[in-house]
């Protein structure tokens, strides 16, 4: 049953993330990226197989019957840190863009296309 919930959570996060990212406003895109990275983090975690109450490190008493895979946990940690930094960066860019470009639309409409406008 947990597997179903876990998989559904990943699916819902991904769907919301993709939907938000496809909206052409920077704030929505930033939120979408954050949701998508949650989905990815859960997915990485699941790739180490779902276990309950199992230690990730073999302690003094020797190995227990089940052990959680520690590597995906380490990967998730790295991914969380990187995603956090990147979200912060996108928000900074979005804020700066909002003041410089007067609006948070993030599509290049005709008058802002770089090809045609003066530098």
């Amino acid at each position, binding site marked *: 049953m947990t597997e179903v919930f876990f998989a559904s959570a990943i699916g819902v996060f991904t769907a919301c993330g993709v939907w938000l990212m496809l909206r052409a406003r920077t704030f929505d895109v930033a939120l979408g990226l954050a949701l998508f990275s949650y989905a990815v983090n859960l997915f990485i975690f699941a790739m180490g197989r779902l276990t309950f109450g199992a230690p990730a490190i073999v302690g003094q008493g020797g190995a227990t019957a089940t052990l959680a895979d520690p590597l*995906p946990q380490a990967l998730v940690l790295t991914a969380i840190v990187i*995603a956090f930094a*990147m979200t912060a960066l996108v928000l900074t860019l979005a804020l700066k863009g909002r003041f410089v470009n007067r609006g948070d639309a993030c599509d290049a409409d005709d008058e802002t296309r770089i090809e045609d406008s*003066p530098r």
Partner: protein
Amino acid sequence: MTMLPDHWLVMPIMLPLLAAALLLFVERVRPAWQPFLSLAMTLVLAGLACRFVVMTHANFIGVYLLGNWAAPFGIVLVLDRLAALMLALTAVIALASLVASWRLARRGPHFHAFFQLQLAGLNGAFLTGDVFNLFVFFEVLLIASYALMLHNAGGRTLRAGLHYVVINLVSASLFLVSASLLYGVAGTLNFADLAVKLPALPAWDAGLARAAALLLLVVFAVKAALLPLGFWLPETYGSAPGPVAALFAIMTKVGIYAIFRVYFTVFGGGEGVLAGLGSPALFAVGMATIVFGAFGALATKRLIALVAYLVLISSGTLIVASTLGPVALGGALYYLVHTTLTVAALFLVAHAIAEQRGPRADRLGSGPPLPQPVLVGLLFLVTAAAAAGLPPLSGFIGKVLMLQGSGRAPLATWFWAAVLGSGLLATVALARAGGSVFWKTHGVAVGAPMPAGDRLGLAVLAVAGLLWIAGANSASQYTAATAQQLAQPQSYVDAVMRQVPVKLPARSPH
């Protein structure tokens, strides 16, 4: 042969990281010292990379065990021919870009620190021996590249920068999905270990492994700007400052490198579930990229965007050539070095032209005359001829090597048509652009002459390019041997898996 001490293998990553940290201090205390420190570090990297090329030329594969754990369990850095070649190329481009950015760096904070972080990320991506650290170094080089691209940026650059950031963040998430999927299936992320384990996968896991492999291809295609995923490139490269765009010439090659590394070293060996996977897709995608790049180059109204479309053509050409057998791959690697140097030089020249034309910038069409028409014109002529692949420059040699190498492949005819056709279209586009910039002029010159930094940067690229032509025989032998090493990953796998940890002296009892 004298070997460098063991720890030198990690230095191309450690030294720039250290320099970046140091530069942040120096910026506060002695701002004028920054470029010299940065330059010194880049020169050291160049020397190191040259040493690595010489070492790997003797069929040496260097393996460095970080934390002294044996291969599949710990993190490894691996130096083979391809890695050494890419390190050397990075160092040359970095040197040219750094010299040319002498003035740009003063216009905003932290330029040199980010530059060194970018180098650390690039070198790490070329040296790393596992999928997850490839992801980490991708992030390092990307976050530095965001900062460099937006250095001293205005509104429009900011918007193009946001596109670049978002598309790379999405591809980073996909990278994580595919990397963890590979781990879930094979239980390892080490390139060499994956190369051993993937062919032996049971049939019920093969589908997942294939999905992960193709998802990785999507991620690398974003980096290499292959067609359905490459639309961000002309805007991004077109709005980055000149020296930064020159440095970015190596960034698409990181994507190409990753495709080569994963598709040859990791998935290439053995007759397992992943053998031959992706090759037809790569061929089609590469061809489409060539066509799109060629027509984009013809259609664009800006000189700098034109150069960006040439980047697309070269990406597509390299990818298509890599699917046509190891001999063509050897030619493609020769062409890769040529095209990186040439595109970097063209970006510098195009930005010099844009600066000299004042408000008209790099838009094609009638504008004020250039203050230095002869110097800039000759530079443009030579770099454009090199980019279009006209003899006797290295583009021509590279194309001949690729076309000869593709001889027997069933799809070679299409490749010939694409390479020759895109070369023709690129020549037409460049000639038309050059004509309208240099000859269709009116009014008086408004721009300032070319700064010394730009000239020096171009000189660095010119020397490297001339060496690549003059030494074409040994260079093409090196790249041919590199392609052989890629096509037969067994030596790579053996070197990594057989590397034993250093014996530490027994700890004395307290």
